[in-house]
């Protein structure tokens, strides 16, 4: 499969000069088109920084970073992002929140005026597909945490990005809602063949969803392990209770370390 995202010896730091805090060091990784990768690691290891880097929100200090063969110089419209907090705009209802990227990204932006109705329909369809039928006109505070997060993922998908970047999107949810959303994300990815990059500290989540799991070390973050998950798809939640699954999770856990 062709490489979509390529990082070669990339480092990144916050601040400049002597006060710079190194967040990522010497990371090399490749994401193929349609691949689902997960990045796991201890708290503060630079997982989110890696996300900011690839999305173009923060430039690398050294090394090369390309998306679709072109070096990344700034935010890309071919990327859709969702964060730990749903970050929905409280003055917009669910549909209008989902429509937001289309008001920014070309070519939708210039079509928005004429074809608002069609775009609206598309957004409603997308929301319905993640189980939000009947909640499309609700404002964020009228939605549960899980519903807000579903809406946020819809917003990341509406402009049909090539890469979906998720920064601990289920971190703030309870265990049952989280598993429900795992399945929702699994189905979205299977249906759209979108390339997904998931940052998480939940190892079960990473192994259940991803094709490849990268383990990062403590700050400054380096990739210490690349692990392919050879569990056949489609995966059912039941798979998380099987021995091969547990073995992978256990191995990853031992790599992350920390005091026990």
């Amino acid at each position, binding site marked *: 499969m062709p490489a979509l995202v390529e990082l070669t010896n990339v480092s990144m730091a916050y601040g400049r000069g002597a006060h710079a805090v190194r967040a990522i060091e010497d990371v090399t990784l490749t994401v193929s088109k349609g691949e689902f990768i997960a990045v796991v690691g201890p708290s503060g290891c630079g997982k989110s920084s890696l996300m900011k880097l690839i999305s173009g*929100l923060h430039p690398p200090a050294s090394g090369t970073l390309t998306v679709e063969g072109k070096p990344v110089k700034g935010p*890309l419209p071919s990327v859709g992002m969702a964060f730990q*907090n749903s970050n929905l705009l409280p003055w917009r209802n669910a549909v209008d929140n989902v429509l937001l990227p289309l008001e920014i990204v070309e070519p939708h932006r210039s079509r928005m005026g004429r074809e608002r109705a069609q775009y609206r329909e598309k957004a409603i369809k997308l929301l319905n597909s993640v189980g939000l039928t009947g909640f499309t006109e609700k404002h964020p505070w009228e939605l549960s945490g899980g519903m807000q997060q579903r809406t946020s993922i819809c917003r990341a998908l509406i402009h049909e990005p090539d890469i979906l970047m998720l920064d601990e999107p289920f971190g703030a949810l309870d265990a049952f809602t989280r598993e429900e959303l795992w399945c929702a994300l699994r189905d979205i990815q299977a249906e759209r063949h979108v390339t997904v990059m998931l940052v998480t500290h939940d190892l079960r989540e990473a192994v259940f969803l991803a094709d490849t799991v990268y383990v990062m070390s403590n700050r400054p973050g380096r990739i210490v392990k690349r692990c392919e998950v050879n569990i056949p798809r489609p995966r059912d939640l039941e798979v998380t209770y099987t021995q091969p699954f547990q073995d992978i999770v256990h191995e990853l856990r031992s790599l992350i370390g920390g005091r026990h």
Partner: protein
Amino acid sequence: MNREYLTTRVLPPLAFTLALFFLWELACHLIKIPPTILPAPSEIFAALWKFRTPIVENSWVTLWTTLAGFAIATVFGLLLGIAVGWHRAIYAGVYPVLVGFNSVPKVAVVPVLILWFGLGEVPAVITAFLISFFPIVVNVATGLATTEPELEDVLRALGASKMDIMRKVGVPRSMPYFFGSLKVAITLAFVGAVVSETVGANKGIGKLMLDAQAGFQVPIVFAGLLVLAFLGIVLYGLTVIIEQRFTGWAFRGQNR
């Protein structure tokens, strides 16, 4: 209007106001306060009715000068607030001047305005504007400055320009601050207009009260005060309605 609304929102303020007037009336009669010091409400309402024609005429002038000044302050305050919140350098540059300007008592400016524009409604409009735009600027700028960076990141990740972020996130986010400041500004505009009229004008409630005071017609002075209080409540109420109409999302907790 349902029964609960009537008993919790309409009756209590009505009853409280009536009780206040009643106690006032009672006090005036029991302690025998001379009407030239503090007239009883009955005398004030009598004066209000007797001089209704000049009172209405002058109230109208005060009302429209207030609203004109307030309208200018709203537009100007919103634009300046956005400019100040736009960039740290503009904020740093403009803010000290604004604070200094706001610290100058507007009574002291009125004579200058009369010198420039002559006696009439213009100084009142300008004073109302000058006194009321400051809270609007400060609030809009605060709203913009406190916008969550995460909300901005959502747009930045899509390659949105500063202008886009301002239009889609910054400005809507600061609207509750803006409408909140209008409540303060409308009362201030009213004060500004009346202050200007009492310093020098040929029409308006302030001027009417000044003339009544010169003629020792104390009930008329108090009738003027009452009209001012009443108009103040009406204007405040209007801005509250507008606020809830436009930024209901920010008041979600209170409607449950």
